[in-house]
């Protein structure tokens, strides 16, 4: 299983763009990259997923390096509501679909 490494915390002001990085140096060719966020007292919420290159949706964008060992979640124009823990996870082979979370990145948003 590919292990992920994220910075434990980040800080940004409202209105700024925030980029959260995730290293997954042992990612396998069959594995996908997912990003979630979690606010206190709620379950993790899916944000975006990708396999390679660049993915964008209405909430965020995801850039994946050419060797797929690094991904970066980009949140445009963060607000106080974006303060949360952001998790990067890598799915294992579909024959052993065991989803493992790391410790995530705690994003603090300042007014």
């Amino acid at each position, binding site marked *: 299983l590919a292990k992920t490494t994220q910075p434990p915390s980040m800080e940004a002001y409202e209105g700024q763009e925030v980029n959260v990085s995730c290293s997954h140096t042992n990612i396998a060719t069959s594995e996908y990259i997912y990003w979630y966020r979690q606010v206190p*007292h709620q379950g*993790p919420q899916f944000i975006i*997923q990708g396999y390679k290159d660049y993915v964008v949706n209405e909430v965020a964008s995801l850039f994946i390096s050419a060797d797929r060992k690094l991904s970066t979640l980009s949140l445009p124009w963060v607000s106080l509501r974006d303060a949360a823990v952001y998790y990067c996870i890598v799915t294992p082979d*579909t024959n052993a*679909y065991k*989803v*493992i*979370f790391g*410790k995530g990145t705690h994003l603090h948003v300042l007014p």
Partner: protein
Amino acid sequence: EAAVTQSPRNKVTVTGGNVTLSCRQTNSHNYMYWYRQDTGHGLRLIHYSYGAGNLQIGDVPDGYKATRTTQEDFFLLLELASPSQTSLYFCASSDSGNNNQAPLFGEGTRLSVL
């Protein structure tokens, strides 16, 4: 709308008590998961299942049993609850099909063992 529903949302029991946490998903997903979340540890996988009658062991299974009675229902059982099992429990479901859909999570069950 895709949903994962957990019950109860809050539970208090005593040491040695018997507790069952319930999870139901209406997403037609084949995989279901139970996690616990504690400060300093993040989300840790207890058990998971890829279909009715199937059970797979996660990373922190000690003290827990689980049963998948139908595709929709996954139960977590604590037969002799201990204070170390005081935690926030999350259930999730996912589909292992070609779309690699991301797991969907429930709202959580807060369990206190006194």
